[in-house]
């Protein structure tokens, strides 16, 4: 493996290590669950992304083939991470907050944890 490839791999690993550390440090520092929720969304983007790019460069330098597993991993992360964050946020709101703690939705209907969807919308249809 030549020097340039090793240098690039090291740079990406260090970058991802820094962001992974900051994400974990955020878990300690921030004070409530909703603020702490912001930390893992960072670790999954640049933290994991750096490791994946380093892995792609490593396998390209080592075997000469482009490995696409890393692209799939990042694609699956981008699909699943927002859904997890959304579930945690919604569970937190349902357990700990009241409707008047949140800002108004500026519409005829309130937020979905407290308010039923309008009649006839796809959510109310029997399946």
């Amino acid at each position, binding site marked *: 493996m030549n020097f340039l490839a090793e240098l690039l791999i090291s740079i990406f690993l260090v970058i991802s290590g820094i962001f992974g550390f900051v994400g974990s440090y955020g878990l300690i520092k921030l004070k409530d669950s909703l603020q702490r929720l912001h930390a893992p969304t960072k670790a999954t983007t640049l933290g994991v992304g750096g490791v994946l790019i380093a892995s792609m460069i490593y396998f390209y330098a080592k075997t000469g083939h482009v490995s696409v597993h890393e692209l799939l991993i990042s694609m699956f992360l981008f699909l699943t991470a927002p859904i997890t964050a959304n579930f945690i946020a919604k569970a937190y709101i349902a357990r700990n907050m009241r409707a008047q703690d949140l800002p108004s939705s500026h*519409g005829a209907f309130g937020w979905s944890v407290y308010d039923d969807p309008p009649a006839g919308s796809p959510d109310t249809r029997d399946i």
Partner: protein
Amino acid sequence: MFRRLVPHPILSLVLVFVWIGLVNKFTLGNLILGTVIGLSIPMITAAYWPNRPKIQRPFKIAEYVLVVLWDIIVANVQVAMIILFKREPNIRSQWIPVPIELKSAEAITVLAGTITMTPGTVSAMLSADCNSILVHCLHTDDPDAVRDEIKSRYERRLLEIFP
């Protein structure tokens, strides 16, 4: 006839690519096996999702992905700065309601996912009639600016992709 055999052409294409990616080696056999999987899974599951998402300008998707990737990198650095260098009492988290004009469920899902993946904001909830989205912002002094940025940067592009 085509609709019956290939109910979700985009899903079929994605399945073929995912299969070839999982095997991690491009050969004719893998392509054929991937095509069989990509055609049979949508056919078997077609009864569970009768509607097909409408996508107007597929080439805008590439632009959107690039914009989002760039924003993720920039926002990561900003949030790392907030976590490392801001004293804890000075971090002002806020709820920001963002009115949305997108109608289709797919477009709203993509917008909510984008808001969550760009660090510093997490999309928490939709209103019951899907006309606004509740965003939790880690630190901001100007909630209106965050709202306008989401609307002008992401929603405007999504409105062009999903009619």
